[in-house]
């Protein structure tokens, strides 16, 4: 059975690497480098994160994209042929929302990939919730879920929502 690919994307520090580490059953391969500019953390992903998850006999590859704009060519490379896209944003960092919207619009307008947005840090109020985030991004509320990327059940929630929405879409065809 061919492995399927899930792409986790979003701005720097949104929790992409954390979510993949939380969900992956194998040690995550990352390509972190020391940051050369002040982005609020010491290392950042420069190519991709990679983890795996077996669901029954189906292998899922979990790919995390780099957050910086200058690696936008990786968004295309990783999104091509993906089963789904998880877009993560930090709910307590609204200054990143415009960049995140740009990234989401870019990928979803170019790649026919089902998507869900995860709003991280829901355990650390004050934080924007899905009800506030959805209208800002112009998304249906059902495509936005609040999560804590360090909690396995919570981290699995956007993936569950993604599959549920795919099923709904398939039933509607």
């Amino acid at each position: 059975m061919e492995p399927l690919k899930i792409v986790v994307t979003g701005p720097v520090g949104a929790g992409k690497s954390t979510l993949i580490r939380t969900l992956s059953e194998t040690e995550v391969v990352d390509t972190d480098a020391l940051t050369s500019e002040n982005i609020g953390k010491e290392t950042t992903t420069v190519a991709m994160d990679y983890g795996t998850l077996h669901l029954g006999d189906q292998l899922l590859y979990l790919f995390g994209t780099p957050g910086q704009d200058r690696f936008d060519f990786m968004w295309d490379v990783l999104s091509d042929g993906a089963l789904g896209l998880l877009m993560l944003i930090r709910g307590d960092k609204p200054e990143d929302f415009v960049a995140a919207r740009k990234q989401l619009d870019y990928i979803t307008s170019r790649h026919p990939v089902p998507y869900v947005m995860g709003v991280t840090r829901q355990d650390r109020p004050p934080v924007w919730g899905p009800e506030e985030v959805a209208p800002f991004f112009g998304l249906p509320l059902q495509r936005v879920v609040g999560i804590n990327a360090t909690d396995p059940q919570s981290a699995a929630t956007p993936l569950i929502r993604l599959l549920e929405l795919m099923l709904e879409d398939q039933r509607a065809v």
Partner: protein
Amino acid sequence: MAIFGNLNHMSLSDLLPFLSSQQGALEIFNLERHPGVTMYFNEGMLTCLYLGNKEADALLARSIVGEILGARKGAFEFLPQARPRRCSQLLNMRVDRLLVSVTTTQDEFAQVREQLPHPKTVFKIAGQTAPQDSRISDFWQKARSHLQAGASSEQLAGDLGMPLDHVRFYLHRLRQLRAVEPVRARPKTVPASGSAASRLLGALKRRFFGTNKEKVWSH
């Protein structure tokens, strides 16, 4: 008597007010981003603008004037009494109003530069309401047929012969007015069949929740 110089020493916003009251042509050359530009003036009006050999319509003329306003490289020469060889559609734009309009657009552009969409993001029409602002409605009229099928800033810039950043700016404004929205590409083929998605969903819930029913995660 001759009027000539360099945009590095005298900007277009300094030149236009005093040249526009005269009749003649302002030729601008050695620009970084354009072939030569020729502007024809008569009685305080910009009557015609050529970009190389191409005659500009009102939308393109505003874009070109906007770009040259910010240009610091380029030489100019004014040719008194020169008239356009041909001008199929007179612009007849009052220069003082044009300057205010273009400067306002430039200021707005600078404010939203970081918010402008990626050049490759595809937009489509979201509503039929025509924008009231003439600066945007001109663009809307020209771009609407392209946006019916979906188009990116990059494609529109090529098709309409406009600067890419100006197209990004107009699409940003049209999006704010809910006249356009980004395309959400629908899957052409479903990577996993219905039964496969259902199977994955069941396995995912069992793995993380120990049941086929998802518990509601609360913080």
